[in-house]
């Protein structure tokens, strides 16, 4: 899959990488899980089917205008990185990675604000790419 992401997400990734390289172990763990999530998305052959969710790739029940998905990882006692993404229907092998966050301290409240943040970003991606969903 090709992965598109916002410039801000790239900056976040840069910052986490810098912190990890300077010896911050928590940042190293976050970087590992974020990179793993992106690698999982890149290795997908197709967009996932809602009926075939896995533990690491599930659609977000709090989705609103767009069906959002989240990528997670095996349990870690201190870090819970969740990557939020969207698969443009009919776009073939493109996935839009929107943002990632460590929800270890937030809990599932994290998901309550996901759609409000993600939906306008998807609108922006659609404007930039001229994507139109076919009926």
């Amino acid at each position, binding site marked *: 899959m*090709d992965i598109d992401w916002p410039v*801000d997400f790239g900056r976040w990734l840069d910052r986490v990488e810098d912190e990890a390289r300077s010896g911050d172990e928590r940042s190293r763990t976050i*970087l*590992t*899980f974020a*990179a793993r999530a992106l690698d999982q998305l890149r290795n997908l052959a197709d967009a996932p089917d809602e009926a075939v969710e*896995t*533990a690491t790739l599930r659609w977000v029940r709090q989705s609103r205008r767009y069906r959002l998905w989240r990528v997670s*990882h095996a349990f870690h006692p201190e870090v819970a990185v969740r990557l939020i993404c969207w698969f443009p229907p009919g776009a073939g092998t493109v996935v*839009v990675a929107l943002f990632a966050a460590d929800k270890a301290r937030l809990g599932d409240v994290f998901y309550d604000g996901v759609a409000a943040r993600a939906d306008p970003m998807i609108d922006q991606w659609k404007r930039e790419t001229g994507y139109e969903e076919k009926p």
Partner: protein
Amino acid sequence: MTEDPTPEAAVFVRGNGRLDRLLSDPRIAADVAQAHAGADEMDRVNAMNLAMIRKAAQMTQVEVARKLGVGQGAVSRLEGRGDMLLSTLYSYLTATGADAASIVVMVHGQKIELDLGRLGDPGFEDPLG
């Protein structure tokens, strides 16, 4: 989509190249490989749960599908799902030959058992009632 946006350029960029560079670092690649192994195991255990019940009953997906009145593919998808209605779960369990299915929870040391077969029953007695 460009890798290096100009100020007027898109808010979105293609990230594959950045990911490649990240994973070209042997230490990061090793960390990610280990994280993949953990994630794969989590997915495997998640997918195994329902299939394990079917296998314990020595049934194939085709046989369960026949009992449920659906195709084998539907059973396969069901076994891969991370979430489902309790009624769907109950149907699957009874199709595998289970004659009792319940959810047991411990609340403040008190064991509470919910009979899945009676959850939709109007006369169901709430164990918390």
